[in-house]
């Protein structure tokens, strides 16, 4: 791709641009007649393609397709300097009108674009010397090498000498050589090119003048390589019009150089001389690399003297900063785009049952997807329904307290059989003939369940204290030890208020405290309680087991009864299971919460089971109080609790009815 320098900012621009990409000035308005015109047929033609044109022998080639400076040479050769003469200085005009063979081709593109060159002020003396210009070529003869001098003396010998050419060419090129003699090639060349080639023997190597144009079957890349010397000059001139043209042969030889110009002596850095072929000799290809080349190229010489033709790529970039440019690398080749294999690797073989199972799984997956509701953010709304339910519950709980006459006699009026069995088992401890042994009360619930289970535990404790039996409490959780202390204290105080009898600690009440270890602790306590509890909950350890309440207790079987107050089925089950091996003859009574009661009832319902009675929840505690004649907190709170449960049942019922109606409406 040719480069055009902006006449305004002197910066390079692609030749297909109309405006400078740096200063937005027109690139054409000041272009001189020597500016290379754009290719008419194929704008993307490379310089190599342009070089093929003059060597093709087509004399009908319009001059407009030739580089500017070549056209100018042709005009000069035709002695028609009328167009370029007015812009040239006098000294150069005189040079151009003369037929000096050693004169530079004087590309007008260089002169027109270089203001220094056109001004003539920097023209060196030796170049401006008419004598030097008129000097015959023979005067430079000693400066040339021998082989070049021989060629220069008789140009025809270089074409006719078969020996050197044959030795330098490969076989395939030697075969093509005799069929196309050099005379035919010379005749096919235009006159201007012949004139150009004759006075410039230094640029034309002996092998470059091979009659390539006459050989029709030669490859394209070889045709482009043939005029190497001229091609190099033309290429340089075509690519960069500002670049000075290559100097003739004597200029490359240091011995034949004229005296240094004045500007060269004055400046520290002389202007760079154009790079000649000797400076950019192509390296030879290794044998292994040459063997990998395509078949039509493998026969090419490895000398590297002939550059390969450029690839004819007509791709034009359409996006980005390279839009409009040709010959660029593609940013995303199609071969690297991800694709999907079209071939099916294998097929699965499944039985009928497997297919049915797969269909069931697919149906389940579809049902899951269909049931998945989209996650939508609900707008903010007041929890009116929650407030309504809470208000109803509070109302149902407060009305029995502040208006007990509305409910009449506090419920429940009927005592359950399980509760009656429990009360009877405790009542039997006070019968005559029964050994008066302390009763062990296991407190197996946390303070959070005290509202439901403490009334049950207290009614048992009061009942036992009323019988005159000591109560020994044990807690199976750290928090339950404190609850046990509270139960015993409140029970003793209540009973003292009723009977006026003062119940003393360690005589009627003992809280042993926390029993760690779970089931293992229960087993150890059942075997040897004295070893487990070295002190009670308050830290009193001196002669603990010698106190009246604990005197004679060596194991679990020495207690008169076992009352398990548990808030979880696991706690009560551990005591039942781990104490079964003792085969104690004392009764076991369970006081459980309403949630744990149903799971513990089988121990009572089974015939010959270990449990002799059971009290479940606050309702059963109220029944027990009524049955034992010990009205307390359970009876007082049951009215409120019953009201809450009744209201809860009503709310649940109404909610289910409304939900059912809504579902029916949706189905319709």
């Amino acid at each position, binding site marked *: 791709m040719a480069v055009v320098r902006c006449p305004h900012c002197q910066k390079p621009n692609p030749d297909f641009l109309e405006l400078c990409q740096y200063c937005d000035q027109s690139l054409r308005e000041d272009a001189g007649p020597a500016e290379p015109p754009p290719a008419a047929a194929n704008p993307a033609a490379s310089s190599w393609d342009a070089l093929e044109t003059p060597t093709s022998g087509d004399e009908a080639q319009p001059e407009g397709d030739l580089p500017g400076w070549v056209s100018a040479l042709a005009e000069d050769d035709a002695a028609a300097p009328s167009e370029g003469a007015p812009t040239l200085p006098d000294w150069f005009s005189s040079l151009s009108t003369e037929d000096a063979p050693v004169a530079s081709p004087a590309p007008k593109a260089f002169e027109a674009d270089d203001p220094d060159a056109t001004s003539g002020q920097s023209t060196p003396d030796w170049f401006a010397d008419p004598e030097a210009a008129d000097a015959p070529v023979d005067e430079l003869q000693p400066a040339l090498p021998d082989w070049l001098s021989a060629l220069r003396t008789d140009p025809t010998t270089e074409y006719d000498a078969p020996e050197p050419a044959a030795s330098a060419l490969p076989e395939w090129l030697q075969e093509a050589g005799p069929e196309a003699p050099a005379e035919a090639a010379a005749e096919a060349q235009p006159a201007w090119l012949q004139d150009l080639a004759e006075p410039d023997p230094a640029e034309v190597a002996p092998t470059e003048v091979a009659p390539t144009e006459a050989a029709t079957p030669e490859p394209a890349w070889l045709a482009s390589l043939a005029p190497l010397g001229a091609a190099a000059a033309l290429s340089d001139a075509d690519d960069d019009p500002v670049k000075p043209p290559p100097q003739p042969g004597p200029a490359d030889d240091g011995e034949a150089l004229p005296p240094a110009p004045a500007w060269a002596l004055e400046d520290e850095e002389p202007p760079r001389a154009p790079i000649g072929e000797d400076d950019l000799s192509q390296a030879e290809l290794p044998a292994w690399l040459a063997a990998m080349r395509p078949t039509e190229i493998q026969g090419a010489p490895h000398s590297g003297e002939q550059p390969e033709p450029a690839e004819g790529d007509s791709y034009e970039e359409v996006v980005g900063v390279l839009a409009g440019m040709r010959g660029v690398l593609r940013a995303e080749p199609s071969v690297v785009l991800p694709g999907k294999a079209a071939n099916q690797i294998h097929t699965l073989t499944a039985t009928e049952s497997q297919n049915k199972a797969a269909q069931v799984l697919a149906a389940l997956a579809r049902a899951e997807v269909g049931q998945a509701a989209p996650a939508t953010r609900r707008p903010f709304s007041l929890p009116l329904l929650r407030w309504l339910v809470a208000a109803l519950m509070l109302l149902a709980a407060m009305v029995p307290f502040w208006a007990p006459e509305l409910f009449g006699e506090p419920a429940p009026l009927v005592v359950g059989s399980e509760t009656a069995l429990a009360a009877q088992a405790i009542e039997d401890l006070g019968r005559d003939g029964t050994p008066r042994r302390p009763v062990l009360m296991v407190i197996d619930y946390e303070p959070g369940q005290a509202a439901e289970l403490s009334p049950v535990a207290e009614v048992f404790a009061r009942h036992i204290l009323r019988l005159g039996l000591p109560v020994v409490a044990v807690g199976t959780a*750290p928090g339950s030890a404190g609850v046990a202390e509270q139960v015993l204290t409140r029970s003793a105080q209540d009973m003292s208020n009723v009977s006026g009898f003062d119940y003393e600690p360690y005589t009627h009440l003992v809280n042993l405290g926390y029993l760690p270890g779970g089931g293992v602790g229960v087993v150890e306590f059942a075997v040897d309680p004295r070893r487990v509890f070295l002190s009670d*909950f308050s830290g009193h*350890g001196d002669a603990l087991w010698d106190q009246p309440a604990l005197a004679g207790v060596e194991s679990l079987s020495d207690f008169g009864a076992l009352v398990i107050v548990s808030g979880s089925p696991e706690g009560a089950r551990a005591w039942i299971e*781990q104490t079964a091996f003792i085969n104690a003859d004392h009764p076991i009574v369970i006081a459980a919460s309403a949630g744990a009661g*149903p*799971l513990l009832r089988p121990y009572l319902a*089974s015939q010959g089971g270990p449990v002799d009675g059971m009290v479940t929840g606050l309702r059963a505690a109220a029944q027990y109080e009524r049955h034992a004649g010990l009205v307390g907190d359970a009876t007082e*709170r049951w009215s409120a609790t019953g009201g809450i449960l009744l209201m809860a049942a009503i709310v649940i019922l109404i909610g289910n009815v409304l939900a059912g109606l809504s579902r029916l409406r949706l189905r319709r």
Partner: protein
Amino acid sequence: MSTDLIGAAVGLALTVMILSYVLGDNPLFRIAMYLFVGVAAGYAVVVAVQNVLIPQLVAPVLALGSQTADVGALTLLGFSWLLALLFLLKLHPANQIGRIPLALLAGVGAAVAIGGAVTGTLLPQTAATAFPLQLSNLGALATSLIVAGGVIATLLTFHYGVRFSARGAEVDPVARVVTTAIAPVGQVFIGLTFGVMVAGLIAGAAAALAERLSVVRSLLGQ
């Protein structure tokens, strides 16, 4: 002001803070919850130290010089201290020696639990399920049939596997009956059991609310 009155006032304030959850999650509810958790944990630590560690480990060591102890008590005390010290090594996660007391606790606990479950629950409950039918008492007869049928149906509900016949396509008739007729009955029994348990939890919550309102009423009445 008496201690009981202060306690009642604090209880009233905490009750109101807990009941404020009806308005939604709020800082007052969270403060009450965090206070309850913190007090419960602290109380548990104090009880464990005062009721277990001091009387079981510290007090016997301090009493060694004042009274004579038998060999068995000293051996048990030394073994307890050894296990306690080994358990302290669990403070370092990579320590393997600390697993010895944990292994002992887990092994002994599992053995005790399994033995107690077999002798105290599994065998007695199995025998209780197969109690003889009393044809003379219709109520007892109905109870016996319901118990036996409910136990069988509930156990067959967990029969998840479906056995295919030798031909591979037809379902075993027994499995078909189990999956289509008996399993739904067992599911009904399981549903009733869970419903009763939930009702018990609601009853416990209602009892707690009633107890709190009773305390408030008592406090306002004073």
